[in-house]
């Protein structure tokens, strides 16, 4: 599904290398987690994959189902099936959540040459999905993320994911700012989208989220590289011993 080879990325504005050769391959239906200390390049990886400006790829490649992601506009990547659940969802005053969702869904359908959803079809789908995420009509009416609590913002991200039905979902620290109940709700939302074909890349600091969203593979990232890959037990190891030993091991 997603294949990243030897990806090197620096900041556009300054001479600072953030990613220093990332290799990652995610098969369809698999859930991979990336853990790592602050500043290791986890969020940068998610931004570069989704097409945010300000970064320069100096070496390497990233493909989604064989298509070169790095040469596409962000909207083309989304239409191709990539979805990033933001760590900090953006507030957009003046744009209603429903308008936003409908525009997004139909833009992607149009880009893929599919028929746009009618107002009725869209409403039906959004109501159904919002309900399971405990998103009420009031939240749907409000401007995108404006005045939403941390938990509401993250649930709104998952609602977008559910509506857009992407093939490859990247969750960037979706657990940050969530209490235990909210984390459970969000995780249930994510798990409901696991269908054996859709792939996930879960970026997190903590093992806790991975209790709810069970990964198949866990990677440890540090200083712009993946330094260790293992099974779910690797996350438990981090939870118990921190990153110190792993980092020392990698340096040795």
């Amino acid at each position: 599904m997603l294949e990243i080879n030897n990806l090197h990325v620096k900041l556009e504005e300054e001479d600072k290398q953030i990613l220093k050769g990332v290799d990652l391959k995610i098969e369809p239906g698999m859930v991979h987690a990336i853990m790592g200390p602050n500043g290791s390049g986890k969020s940068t990886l998610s931004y570069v994959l989704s097409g945010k400006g300000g970064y320069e790829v100096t070496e390497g490649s990233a493909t989604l189902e064989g298509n070169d992601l790095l040469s596409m506009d962000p909207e083309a990547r989304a239409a191709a099936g990539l979805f990033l659940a933001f760590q900090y969802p953006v507030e957009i005053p003046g744009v209603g959540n429903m308008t936003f969702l409908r525009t997004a869904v139909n833009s992607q359908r149009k880009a893929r040459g599919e028929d746009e959803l009618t107002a009725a079809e869209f409403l039906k789908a959004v109501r159904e999905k919002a309900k399971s995420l405990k998103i009420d009509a009031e939240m749907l009416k409000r401007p995108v993320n404006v005045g939403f609590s941390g938990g509401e913002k993250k649930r709104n991200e998952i609602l977008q994911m559910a509506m857009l039905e992407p093939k490859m979902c990247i969750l960037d620290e979706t657990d940050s700012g969530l209490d235990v109940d909210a984390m459970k709700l969000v995780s249930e939302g994510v798990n409901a989208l696991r269908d054996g074909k859709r792939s996930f890349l879960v970026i997190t600091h903590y093992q806790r989220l991975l209790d709810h969203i069970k990964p198949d593979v866990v990677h440890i990232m540090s200083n712009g590289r993946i330094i260790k890959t293992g099974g779910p037990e690797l996350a438990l190891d981090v939870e118990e011993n921190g990153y110190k030993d792993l980092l020392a091991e990698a340096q040795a």
Partner: protein
Amino acid sequence: MIAPSKPKLTQAKIDATDARIKAITPPVVRGWSADLRADALSRLRAMGLPGPRDEYWKFTKPQSLVQPEAPKAAVFDAGEAQIFDGVDRVKIVFVDGVFDPEESDALAPNGVTIERLSQANSDIHWAKALYGKLETAGQDPVPRPLAALNTWAATDGLLIRVSGQTEKAVSIVYHHRDEASDVMMHHVIKLDDGAELTLLENGPAAARFNKVMEVEVGKGAKFHHVRAQGRDHERRAVTHIFARLKAEALFKSFTMTANGVLTRNECIIEMLGDDAVAHVAGACMGDGDFLHDDTVFVTHDALNCESRQVFKKVLRNGAKGVFQGKILVKAGAQKTDGYQLSQALLLDGDSEFLAKPELEIYADDVACSHGSTTGAIDEDALFYLRARGVSEAEATNLLTLAFLAQALEEIEDEALRDVLLERLSAWLDRRID
């Protein structure tokens, strides 16, 4: 307040004013307005027309509004339906300032009397108490000579008296068919105590249009004004609204502007009765050779009144926006709630927004605030939308419309608001195709 000293007019200004006056053949007027028009001419000569050195015209060059001949403006067919066609209304049509009886509805809805200024020649008329009177009051402390010029020489306009609730909006439609038309129109509107009126205006009116509207809103009366200025690229317009509010009166005026090489909209509001509310708002979109100037002066002279100014401008390709807004709170106007917001969204580095927000307060128990911002499209919001699959152009439109929406919220009637939003959205979409 210190009265501004009246500087002696420069010879250049006297000459320019004379040249303009000479180029006009004023209408032959009998009856109640004759003296009022003569007074206006004296006022005009004493003030002189605005010149390039006048402080009040620092950001907007008045030359093309003042010169004797109107610069030509090509007639533009936008190929779209008249904006208020779907609204239940009484329609009155002027073509280059000339009344069009064929296109107009009968001038007699319930609760309202409508006369044409050019036909009202009796000696006694209710409008005599207002015509040029609110304009005169609005000349202090800042002179507005183009309004005095209008009071002197306006060829037509409507005298609207509202005595009760009106079930239909009154809609004035202005067409522009002559590329050299130079038109002055003057409306006087009086809402009796407790009366209510929605006034709609749309269309380009003329190559050069000078319009004055004097409005008196009686005790507890409600006046809603929604205006869509014409889209002819080359047209010029200077408009003045002079409003006087009595106790508990409501005044709401909204203007949408797209295109037009030069537009100066002045709105002068006097709040003379307690507990009155005045909101004036505008949304404009300018592209290329475009200057839009909102100049507002709100005077609070009573207790517990609320005023709001909300102006939003979207500018690109060298378009220029101007805002001069003032709230004057007189001594004794306690519990005043004054608010002023002017914001510009610059879609490129060539556009420009100049704002001069002012507060002048002589009462000690008031809440007044103003904010003025200039900015580009929010990059984070743009990326968020694109990451969800929305194209860059469409995302920009969505954010642009969202930016303007705050001004449109000042329109109380939701159906009317939707009419304008739809039109704005269609204009934005057309730019993508």
